[in-house]
Every structure is written in C-alpha cells, then in structure tokens.
C-alpha cells in the first residue's frame, strides 16, 4: 500500500497557496494542476516564456506557436503573458516564482538534488532544472521512494548534482519529508502515505531523518 501517482500529485497540491505562481516539471508534477483547489488563483509558469498557462487544447485547436517547456501543445488564459526565455529565467532566478515541483533521481539528506544525468548514459541536458532549483523560492520534489528497490533518498547523492541544498520538501509514494536549508537540521519525516509504516520508510530510505509525524 502506498500513494498512487495521482495521490502524490494531490498531496503536492496541498502546498499551493492562493495567488501562487508555480512552475511544474514534467511527469507527476504536471498532474498537480488537476488538483488546484476550487477558487484558488494559481498562475502556472512555463519556462520557455509564458505565464498563465492553460490546459491542453481541444483536438484540432493545437497551435504550433503555443507550447510549454515540455514541448506539449497548451492553451492561453485571460491572464496569460508571453516573454523571451531570458525574461522567463529572470523571473525564475530573481525569486519571483513561489513554487517549483519537480521529479528527481536522487535527493540527499542535506537537500542536494540529482535529476539530470547518469554518467555513462546518453546525456540529454539539464534544460531549465538547475535554474529552477537555484531560483524558485520553494522546491518540492515528487518521486517514487525507490528505484528498482534501491533507495533514492540518500546520505549523499552519487549522481552529478542539479543543485546543492536546494530541496525544501520531498513527496514520495511512501512519505513526505521537510528540509531546512540551514545545513544543520536533519531532514524530517512529516507524513506517512496511507498504509505505510515508519518501519517501511526506514527500510526504504538510506538518508538519516528525524521523525516529526
């Protein structure tokens, strides 16, 4: 028993606040937009150069000039603005985006994040991930707790980093952890997924963490 992808997205959506500007990565993070609470005003940023991103278009209404950072066709909203990629990352780097929700390969107990390359494998590039984790006010990682049975929450990342000490929260299928960026406080387990026990989490986690359930 653990959370489904949808439940993980739903949990991440609880971190949204009214008026937030949010950047969602591809994969599970994209699903978060399905769980924005009724009446809450959230503007989604797409780092290619758009703020106020709408849902996918109806069939036949796709516009090749209107895509998101995942190169998917999207739509415009009344609040939408377009800008250059440099202006987009000025917004990101300058701390104007409240929240970024991303996937990850590994997270270390000090908040280090690895999600862009595996040495020896074909490298596709980091895209905007390094800028997002360095610039956005709050970074939430949504990922499976383990990969092929191996823990992804580690004492130290052994893959090349995307950012050092950048993670604020990790939501997995098994649990939710909080990180303080003070470099001293341990990461904290703050929630267990439905039907998951503390022992389950301990067994599937290499990182050291405090329990604050």
């Amino acid at each position, binding site marked *: 028993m653990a959370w489904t992808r949808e439940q993980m997205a739903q949990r991440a959506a609880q971190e949204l606040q009214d008026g937030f500007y949010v950047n969602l990565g591809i994969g599970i993070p994209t699903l978060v937009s399905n769980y924005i609470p009724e009446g809450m005003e959230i503007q989604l940023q797409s780092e290619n150069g758009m703020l106020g991103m*709408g849902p*996918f278009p109806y069939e036949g209404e796709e516009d090749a000039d209107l895509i998101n950072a995942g190169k998917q066709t999207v739509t415009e909203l009344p609040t939408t603005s*377009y800008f250059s990629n440099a202006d987009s990352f000025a917004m990101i780097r300058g701390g104007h985006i409240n929240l970024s929700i991303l996937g990850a390969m590994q997270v270390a107990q000090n908040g280090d994040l690895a999600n862009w390359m595996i040495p020896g494998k*074909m490298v596709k590039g980091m895209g905007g991930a*390094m800028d997002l984790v360095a610039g956005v006010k709050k970074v939430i990682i949504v990922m499976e707790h383990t990969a092929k049975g191996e823990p992804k929450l580690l004492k130290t990342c052994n893959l090349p980093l995307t950012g050092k000490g950048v993670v604020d929260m990790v939501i997995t299928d098994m649990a939710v952890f909080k990180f303080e960026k003070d470099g001293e406080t341990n990461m904290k387990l703050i929630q267990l997924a439905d039907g998951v026990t503390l022992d389950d989490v301990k067994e599937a986690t290499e990182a050291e963490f405090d329990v604050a359930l």
Partner: protein
Amino acid sequence: MSDRKIYADATAALDGILTNGMTLMSGGFGLCGIPETLIEAVKVAGVKGLTVISNNAGVDGIGLGVLLESKQISTMVSSYVGENKMFAEQYLNGDLEVVFTPQGTLSEQIRAGGAGIPAFYTKTGVGTLVAEGKEVKNFDGEDYVMERGLTADVALVHAYMADKEGNLVFRKTARNFNPMMATAGRITVAEVEHLVEPGEIDPDHIVVPGVYVQRIVHVPNPVKHIEQRTTRTRNQVA
C-alpha cells in the same frame, strides 16, 4: 524606407556571411519558432565545422537535425538535446562536441553578449559540474558562479512579423530565444512570416528594434511542426 534589409530568399539572405568554423545562433525552443528556412539554406551553403548555439538541436530531418545529418556542426551549445537520434550517434562516437548549459544561464549569456556585458554572476549550477573551472564568488553570504556573455558571427531568428526597418514582433511562445539572439549576432538574419511597411506595427509593441536586424527574408505560411501533440477531449474537465 528603402528595401536595403530585404533579401529575395534565404540563400540570398545568407550570401557572403557564412564561413567554415563560424559560430551561429539559431532561435527557437524545440521546433517552436525555429528559423527553419534559414537552416535549410545553411545546409545548401555547405559550410562545415559550425559551432551552433541553440537551446535544442531539432529532431531528425527538421531544424538543426538537418545540419547534424549533413555533419556541418562540430559543437553544440544547448540546454537539452533529447529528441534526436542523429545527435546521440554523433555525440557518442565523438564527432560532435556538446556544451551543456542550464537554460536560464544560456539565455542570459546571450542577452549579456548582445548587451555588452562580458560576464555576470548566477546561483544556477553552483556546486555542480556546470561550475567546474569557473570563478565562484560570494555575495552577501551566498555563492554565485561567473558566466560569460555569448555572441555569434551570425544569428538566425524567426519572427512573426517585421517591418522593413527590421522591427520584429513574435507570436506566443515562438518568441523564446529569438529576441536575445537577434541582439547577439554580429549579423542577424530574420525570417519572418509577415513583412509590412514601417509604421504598421505599433511602436509600443515592438520586441526587437530594427537596429539589431541586418537582413530580412519573407517566408509566408511556413510549415510549423508540433513535437508533442497533447489535447483534451471536449467532454473532459480541464
């Protein structure tokens, strides 16, 4: 207004400015807003050993994929190149060098290059491979890495509309890297979907002033490609 900046076709627009080993910038994000007609003309010109600065590298047979196929590119400076088999092949066998650059650093480097700023500091990439060999400096208790401005011998951009003075506007997310690249090319060549007389674009709406654009080619009704066609059905809740 004279037609001094207007060229009859993409080949004419690139005549005399392409050389082996040069640095090109090429606008676009994925296949959105790429200067596809100009890229095809670079292929026809046959120049080799190009360093190409572009966020992505096209896909097989489209955009920069065409120049990979013809082996005209020796170095790519990009943030993400995932969608291209030709790319993977040449990269893995060492024919192609790739400089991976975080997307926001890349676009800011291009903006800086066009703005006469030789270097700037950013938090992006501190403590990662990207910062290796680069100067790191502490400001107000936080570390930042120094990144250099980028310019190109020639910048190829795609715009929605230009007037004959070279003032450019863009459409939706096809803007992406095109405006900064227009400023960072020693010669900037724009392919434009619509070409109008000066005064037809509201001067408050102009994104790239004409001073940055040396050559213009009118490419009406270009074929536009969609990489990830994602849709919803009418009865689906958004």
